[in-house]
């Protein structure tokens, strides 16, 4: 082997560079999650958890128990609509509203949150396009913001409202917020509240998801970050991980775009089979 080749191959990237490149890849993914996530503040699960805490205060719990079962009339209607369309800029924000929930306090707080999110998105859109115009004039770049809702589940005991926010600027990013509403008790269902007190639900659900990711990586159905990719990969769910309950009564765990997989995977969801949480679920 030549001296040149030997010397050349002896040069190695420093640990600093390795770390720096790792950070670039991680930050890159985080930046892609914005701006929607940045606008809406903390991850959706935290917002929902806040409402739950609100709901657990003694006064409210007592108030809720006085109300007869009126689950059948809980419904979600379109409350507000914001439209904007000019050249390459477009916004279409549809805001839902919950009605007929026995717990009036909870209903008001959910509706206030739905309204606040829509207002934040609209405000951000208006400042964004003003700035974008200043910098780019009438560049042919599509800039869009969309928000809509969907009822994922609706049966006698629960209604699941899925509010999605999408921004499109070359590539689109969507953030989902799930509101799992217990119609009978007039409560917002949190992930921990689905399990017996003190039960470890994080481990079995996380193990199931890890195995499922490995399986899908193997079959090539989808790609998830895994050990050795040099990026943060999925290890376990958060205690208040974003979730919803589907029509089969199963828990579906949701992730943000780029959180556990490259962008093209979108917002991955994992339905947790009933047997995985058998024995610990209430």
């Amino acid at each position, binding site marked *: 082997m030549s*001296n*040149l080749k030997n010397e*050349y191959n002896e*040069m190695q*990237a*420093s640990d600093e560079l390795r770390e720096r490149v790792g950070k670039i890849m991680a930050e890159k993914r985080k930046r892609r999650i914005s701006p929607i996530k940045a606008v809406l503040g903390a991850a959706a699960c935290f917002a929902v958890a806040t409402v739950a805490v609100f709901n657990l205060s003694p006064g409210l719990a007592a108030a809720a128990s006085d109300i007869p079962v009126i689950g059948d009339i809980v419904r979600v209607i379109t409350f507000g609509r914001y439209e904007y369309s000019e050249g390459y800029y477009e916004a279409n924000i549809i805001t839902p509203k919950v009605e007929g929930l026995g717990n009036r306090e909870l209903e008001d707080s959910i509706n206030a949150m739905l309204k606040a999110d829509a207002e934040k998105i609209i405000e951000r859109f208006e400042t964004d396009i003003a700035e974008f115009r200043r910098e780019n004039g009438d560049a042919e770049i599509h800039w869009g913001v969309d928000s809509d809702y969907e009822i994922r589940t609706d049966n006698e005991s629960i209604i699941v409202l899925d509010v999605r926010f999408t921004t499109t600027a070359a590539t689109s990013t969507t953030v989902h917020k799930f509101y799992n509403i217990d119609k009978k008790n007039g409560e917002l269902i949190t992930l921990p509240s689905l399990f017996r007190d003190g039960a470890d639900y994080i481990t079995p659900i996380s193990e199931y998801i890890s195995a499922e990711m490995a399986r899908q990586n193997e079959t090539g159905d989808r790609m998830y970050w895994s050990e050795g*990719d040099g990026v943060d990969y999925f290890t376990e769910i958060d205690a208040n991980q974003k979730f919803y309950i589907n029509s089969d009564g199963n828990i579906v765990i949701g992730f943000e775009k780029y959180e556990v997989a*490259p962008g093209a*995977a979108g917002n991955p969801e994992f339905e947790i089979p009933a047997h995985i949480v058998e024995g610990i679920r209430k």
Partner: protein
Amino acid sequence: MNAAAKEKLFEIYITENLDSAYRFAYTYMKNRHDAEDVVSESVVRALDAISTLRNPQYIKVWFYRIIANTALTALKKQSRYVSVDFTENAVEAEPGQDDYSDLYLNDILQELPEKYRAPVIMKICEGMTLAEIAKVLGINENTAKTRLYTAFGILRKKKEELV
């Protein structure tokens, strides 16, 4: 291959081949600090342009091309970049069997202008084909061949002067 797979492929590729990416950037920049900047910048650019990676088989050529372009931009920015064309008075020499056995890295870095360094490194140290070298540099194969031969001509002349 979809975009998700490409992104993942690139992340795996760069993690496994960071040393060679760094070496290649060093070929241009000739110091650790600048070479590290070029690698970092190239990773950012590569992630932005992942859709331009059409054939995953050519990920190395694709990424080396990004490094080469990033390095040239950096050199220009530093205004240290002086493009000197040696083709007129340099003698072309075909790389023979033993032609580069007495070459040292320093010869390449000190004696050759940037334009000729990368092709020699890719040929001798990376064992890349002429077609691959041409792709990385965005030139045609004949030009790549000429640059390579010119580089060997310059190096041979230096050796003769020393003897």
